[in-house]
């Protein structure tokens, strides 16, 4: 192996670095399928998760493509009403529960959390493996619902439509989500226990990288919000399949109570999708600006504040539902409050660039795109927190555009930023940088072309979940569908060049970005036990320059962050 590196002129490797006769990497410790499917190594489980979420991403993406194609014209010319309804439900259910929620925590979180805090593995490795199986089984159950005729309730499963009126495979679909909920809770328990108990010597709470903080706060939401969804699903199944009256309005049940329970989970779930992306952005932006993060303490407080206050705001999904207007005012106020810590994060990322040595490698391009898209998504959130505007745009394309800016524009950009940033660490290979930069730029423009017109269509009054629509909205839908084609190409591109790099990419050195985190203080890819010896931490994270001094051009990292024993 080492000889090949030495021969390769493209490699940045110091030939000595890999020629030390070190233990084999986690990738080469057993190559059989069985060795992967029974592995309790957090890094291998992360790879398993990466494969399954990628599969679900493309299933959900295929449904979205059909939806956008259908909306190209105002008439129903591609699919009929029922098929369309099943397509957007499939898109929502798969993307929310089998891509967005597990995406960053179970792949990057699983792989990096122990590495970043200097641990050998997560606290409960067997539970970690079990969580992957639960996630895949849940996904397969939900996919079975598609084979059994599909689900047409929308991902929100509102009663009484889902319990008494829909004739589709709702029960199977929600049971899949229920099973995947166990997987989510297991991951949350694991991450919280790991962060508390397995930090390396010297890794105090305020020396944790922000990505670890993001995983920790996300896990709190995992553990405390998911059970409410699980119970809500049981209530729906009990009413639909066991015939117990639960929300049945004819018997005095309250459908609005379902919405409270559902959004108590599903609003914090938005922060499950958001916080991990914020963690990745903080890691990448410091590395490519060669600066310490601006206001580390405030970044931590902001993460915690978003995670906690995020639980207080669910009612803004229900302003038109017939909820009491007094409760609506409370929820409106709390929704404005939760926007403050998000704004602080944007300002701090911006300020981190100031007086830096900014490089434009592909992870950084994704992150710069993230900041723009997140700002637009966050500010349109203020529109939706204002009751009079929300009443007008609730359940229109304005809402669709808003949450896609947050959950797709921002979070998926962060996902790709992380993928490009840590790809050398995961696989030990470098990808073609030009292609990666091109995909990043294409993704940004494709995304805006797809979703910005939807803000306008929504304010003009185009409702969501319409497969036929009044013809005056066609111009916005044509723009949006064209953008979706560009976006689809941009999402497929990394699949191609990253796969190529697995076989033909240059070997990666241990720390190709000259980054500061502990995860770079081991080989690429890391060995089964993660580190050679016990890492110790001596300083705050993002130690790109001495405190109070300016970063110099390509200054080598000062070697106090972690030591290789």
């Amino acid at each position: 192996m080492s000889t090949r590196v030495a021969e390769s002129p493209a490699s940045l490797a110091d030939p000595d670095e890999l020629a030390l006769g070190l233990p084999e990497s986690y990738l080469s410790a057993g190559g059989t399928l069985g060795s992967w499917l029974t592995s309790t190594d957090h890094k291998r489980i992360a790879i398993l998760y990466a494969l399954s979420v990628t599969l679900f991403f493309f299933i959900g993406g295929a449904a979205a493509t059909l939806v956008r194609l259908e909306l190209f014209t105002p008439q129903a010319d591609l699919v009929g009403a029922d098929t369309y309804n099943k397509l957007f439900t499939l898109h929502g259910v798969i993307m929310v529960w089998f891509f967005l929620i597990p995406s960053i925590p179970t792949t990057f979180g699983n792989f990096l959390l122990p590495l970043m805090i200097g641990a050998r593995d997560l606290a409960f490795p067997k539970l970690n493996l079990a969580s992957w199986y639960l996630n895949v089984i849940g996904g397969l159950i939900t996919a079975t619902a598609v084979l059994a005729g599909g689900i047409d309730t929308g991902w929100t499963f509102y009663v009484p439509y889902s319990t008494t009126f829909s004739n589709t495979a709702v029960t199977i679909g929600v049971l899949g989500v229920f099973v995947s909920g166990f997987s989510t809770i297991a991951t949350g328990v694991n991450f919280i226990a790991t962060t508390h108990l397995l930090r390396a010597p010297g890794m105090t709470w305020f020396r944790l990288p922000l990505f670890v903080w993001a995983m920790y706060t996300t896990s709190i939401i995992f553990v405390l919000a998911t059970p409410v969804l699980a119970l809500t699903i049981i209530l729906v199944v009990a009413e639909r399949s066991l015939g117990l009256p639960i929300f049945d309005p004819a018997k005095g049940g309250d459908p609005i109570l379902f919405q409270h329970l559902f959004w108590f989970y599903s609003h914090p779930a938005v922060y499950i999708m958001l916080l991990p992306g914020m963690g990745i952005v903080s890691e990448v932006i410091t590395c490519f600006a060669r600066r310490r993060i601006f206001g580390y303490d405030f970044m931590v407080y902001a993460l915690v504040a978003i995670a906690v206050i995020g639980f207080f705001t669910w009612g803004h999904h229900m302003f038109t539902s017939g909820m009491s207007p007094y409760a609506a005012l409370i929820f409106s106020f709390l929704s404005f409050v939760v926007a403050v810590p998000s704004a602080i994060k944007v300002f701090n990322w911006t300020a981190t660039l100031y007086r830096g040595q900014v490089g434009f490698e592909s992870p950084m391009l994704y992150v710069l795109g993230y900041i723009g898209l997140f700002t637009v998504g966050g500010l349109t959130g203020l529109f939706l927190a204002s009751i009079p505007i929300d009443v007008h745009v609730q359940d229109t394309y304005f809402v669709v555009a808003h949450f896609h800016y947050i959950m797709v524009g921002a979070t998926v950009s962060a996902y790709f930023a992380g993928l490009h940033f840590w790809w050398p660490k995961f696989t030990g290979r470098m990808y073609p940088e030009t292609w990666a930069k091109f995909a990043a730029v294409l993704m940004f423009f494709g995304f805006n072309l797809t979703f910005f017109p939807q803000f306008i269509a929504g304010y003009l009054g185009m409702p969501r979940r319409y497969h036929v629509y009044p013809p005056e909205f066609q111009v916005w839908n044509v723009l949006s569908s064209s953008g979706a084609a560009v976006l689809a190409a941009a999402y497929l591109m990394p699949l191609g060049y990253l796969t190529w790099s697995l076989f033909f990419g240059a070997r990666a050195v241990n720390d190709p970005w000259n980054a500061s985190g502990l995860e770079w203080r081991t080989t690429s890819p890391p060995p089964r036990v993660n580190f050679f010896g016990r890492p110790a931490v001596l300083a705050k994270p993002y130690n790109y320059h001495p405190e109070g001094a300016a970063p110099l051009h390509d200054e080598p990292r000062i070697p106090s962050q972690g030591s290789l024993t």
Partner: protein
Amino acid sequence: MTDPAIATEAPLHAEFLREPWDGLGLPQEEALSYQRFGATFGIWIFIASEVLFFGALFLFYAAVRAEHAEAFATAARETNIVYGTLNTAILLTSGLSAAAASLASEHVPLRRLTQWCLVATATLGLAFLAVKGMEYRDDIAEHLVPGRGFKLPEPSAQLFFGFYWLSTGIHGVHLTVGIGLVARLIWIGWRHPERLPGNPQVEVTMLYWGFVDMVWLFLYPALYLVGRPG
């Protein structure tokens, strides 16, 4: 960070020590005690999660009861308070044996006591399910299953029994899982007696058992003590 209550004279079994706790560079005794704390912490996080699960269930109960107080009182009078009270007593007693098992498992000389307490816990759990089964049989005979031919005329009384069947069912599933976990410990104690004392799984299982007990303590007044004075 080690818990004083579990840093005891429990025997050291190298086989209890798992990855990644064996790689912390701690002496074996300390590593084992730290791992045990980790297991306890883990199950408590899970219990906090379960609190929200049952919290949502009780929220449903409270909101519907606030709206239909009368119908709930009428309907709750139909539940069988004898079975309910008997089952509460059974579960409280199982909580006693579970707590005793958890305390005793920390000492090698109390191995037999641990084993017997585990057996008592599982038996009481099964007794609870048996009483519950008899109660279900009576309820079905009295047409207390919501739907056609329901005993009471008010539609919202059916909501109460919707909650009754659902909540006792969910609690029963939790209890069955608990009995399974205890049975596993009994099996370990029977086949490998030396693996019972000091095993972190005893405390974890007993904490879960205690939580299932607590849920029933709230279900009891919610289902059986409503509308009795009338």
